[in-house]
């Protein structure tokens, strides 16, 4: 074969490309975790934006580990996780996920246990693990393994407008705490002619928001996704606790709620409280601090807080958000360093003081003097009590978990929209669940 100048040029170019690729490979393979580059998936919230803008750069400066951050809205999270992790593309090393996502993530083996790192005293100082509430750590375990390190705990709280309580003859120092007490107070506080709703909570089916509020009430009424022996049971929508809760949910929202409550996500419910249009609101603890923000809330300084009380010991919905390590990450050491950093006391205190994360998952952060100075003591007391009873298993931990939540949300939306009566809607939901788990 005659070798022309063109052939030589092509061979030289090919050699350059191969060498460049090989060298790139060397630097990635040869470097320790300190030179690693990892990818982090965050759910788009004010607190995660602060992590991206303030704390992740701080982490890179301290460790030399470069972190690429991807922010995704919560509504698109399920699709993003399934498409990126399901394809096995190793797009992410660390992901932020909720306890509700654990059902899918663990069942599909998209995230890995962290116990080897937790047991390794060199990789993990005991001061790190000691800062988390024991009950929370143990309840987050799945088959005795830890898959996520908690960052934020959305334990449910009852927020109330103290002035409205006084006007209705209720004592703000003795707020309602059980479901029966909440119903009785809502009736007294409901004054539609004055534009005042007695109660508000999530009513929209969007993102299964309504079933989140319903599960808070269902847990208080003794409902659980397990039977008395702790064995998983999902087709429980026609059992007394579920039916009673559906009736109470319907009464609270349809009879004592604002006119358009069936479309309310947490944002509309929060706005109704901030604007003095609702007297009580049952929702996650991390939403509370905005009620005290004078630039957003007309009821700042007039807010009361109560931790609801229910049956059993773990009756509070612990909507835990945490950080998990993706199975197959090429930089597990760097990933673990990042998880530890993001769930450390320093970050928790910093974000609590800045107001971006009002419900950190660390007890040592909540008891820190800086945090105590920054928050309403009633809020901190209620939240500390609620976290002690938090149960993060509020969504079924099976691959069909999201679909089961969807069936409950559909039933509740039908009830609020007068599309079906309570018995009919809950029976339909139960039949769907039976089909899903058979």
């Amino acid at each position, binding site marked *: 074969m005659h070798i022309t100048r063109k052939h030589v040029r092509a061979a030289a170019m090919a050699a350059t490309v191969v060498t460049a690729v090989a060298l790139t490979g060397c630097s990635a393979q040869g470097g320790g975790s300190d030179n690693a580059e990892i990818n982090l998936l965050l759910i788009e919230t004010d607190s995660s934006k602060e992590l991206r803008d303030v704390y992740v750069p701080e982490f890179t400066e301290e460790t030399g580990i470069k972190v690429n951050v991807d922010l995704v809205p919560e509504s698109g999270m*399920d*699709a993003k996780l*399934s498409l990126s992790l*399901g394809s096995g593309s190793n797009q992410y090393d660390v992901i932020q996920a909720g306890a509700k996502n654990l*059902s*899918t993530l663990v*069942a*599909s*083996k998209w995230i890995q246990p962290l116990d080897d790192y937790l047991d390794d005293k060199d990789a993990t100082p005991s001061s790190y693990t000691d800062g988390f509430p024991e009950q929370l750590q143990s309840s987050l375990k799945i088959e005795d393994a830890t898959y996520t390190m908690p960052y934020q705990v959305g334990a449910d709280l009852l927020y109330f407008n103290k002035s409205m309580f006084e006007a209705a003859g209720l004592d703000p120092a003795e707020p309602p705490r059980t479901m029966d007490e909440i119903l009785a107070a809502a009736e007294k506080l409901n004054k539609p002619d004055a534009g005042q709703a007695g109660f508000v909570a999530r*009513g*929209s*089916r*969007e*993102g299964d928001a309504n079933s989140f509020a319903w599960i808070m009430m269902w847990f208080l009424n003794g409902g659980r996704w397990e039977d008395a022996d702790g064995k998983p049971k999902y087709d429980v929508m026609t059992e007394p606790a579920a039916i009673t809760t559906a009736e109470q949910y319907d009464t609270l929202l349809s009879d004592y709620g*604002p*006119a*358009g*409550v*069936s*479309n309310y996500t947490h944002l509309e419910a929060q706005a*109704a409280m901030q604007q003095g*249009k609702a007297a009580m609101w049952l929702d996650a603890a991390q939403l509370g601090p905005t009620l005290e923000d004078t630039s957003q809330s007309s009821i700042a300084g007039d807010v009361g807080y109560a931790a609801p009380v229910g049956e059993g010991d773990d009756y509070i919905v612990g909507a835990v958000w945490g950080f998990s390590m993706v199975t197959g990450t090429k930089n597990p050491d760097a990933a673990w360093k990042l998880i530890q950093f993001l769930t450390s006391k320093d970050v928790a205190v910093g974000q609590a003081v800045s107001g971006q994360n009002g419900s950190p998952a660390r007890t040592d952060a909540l008891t820190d003097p800086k945090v105590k100075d920054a928050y309403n003591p009633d809020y901190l007391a209620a939240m500390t009590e609620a976290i002690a009873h938090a149960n993060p298993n509020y969504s079924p931990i099976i*691959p*069909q978990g*999201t*679909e089961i939540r*969807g069936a409950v949300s*559909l039933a509740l*939306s*039908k009830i*609020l*929209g*007068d*599309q*079906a009566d309570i018995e009919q*809607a809950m029976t339909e939901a139960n039949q769907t669940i039976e089909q899903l788990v058979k």
Partner: protein
Amino acid sequence: MTLSRTSSGSRWSSTGILKKDNNSTWFLLIGPPFVILFLLTAVPLVLSLYTALLDWNLADPAGATFVWFGNFVELAGDPGFWNAIGLTAYQVIVTVTIQVAFGLAIALLLSQDFRGAGFLRSVYLIPMMTTPVVVGLLWRMLYNTDSGAINGALALFGIPPVNWLGDAALAMPSVIAADVWLSTPFVVVILLAGLRSIPSEVYEAAQMDGASGWGMFWHITLPLLRPMIMLALLFRIMDAIRRFDTIYVMTGGGPGNATETLDLFGYFNAFTYLEVGKGAAVATIMLLIIFAVSFPILRRLQKGE
């Protein structure tokens, strides 16, 4: 500017369009984009059809199982699917009927020469230029029970607030109204072009024969406009069947499943519940429905009826 090559005249016609008889150049220029576009359509379509035959939950570590038409059988026994079919039919029929009727009326009005007609024609295009998601958010705010402009206007007449998107009976008519606002201008543009292409001599001759305004509309305008009406129907029906964004933003399929059309039903199955096989089966059924509805219209258009 034309691409005419005057020297040989063998490759380009006088209008600048490549002559088909020079096969190698023709294939060289037309082939790559055709092949790329074909592959970009055909490959996902075939994969989607194949996925529809799998029992595949992305969250299930067991992976996918080939079940032939199992997903279709499951859908046939699912009341949610039939609810979605019924809602889609209702939404398409009502939306397209109103859009064509309103579109024709507005096009007839705007085809007249009067002061400000040009300005009005431009104004009517504004909804069409707006992103559907933005339109959905806008209408969601208008319909807001507590602070929406619609309930605000009703309050002036002492009418209590209406829960437009939260009441199962009102939700679908409300989302239909939003789509009528969004897409009627498209029908107007098509029909306006058709109206302006009808020679004025035809109307002048009819007037001389003593034809009434209604008679001219019925016997001249409508028959000559029929191909354009069919074209508008074809586009609007296809678009309405696969309507997703505005409904998703306004109601998310609720309250209950009162606005869960076929597209939303498929989306929830595939991307919320991760049942991608079932979601693909819904998409396949949608494709068949669009074919079945649009094919007769397309045939009549091609025949020039």
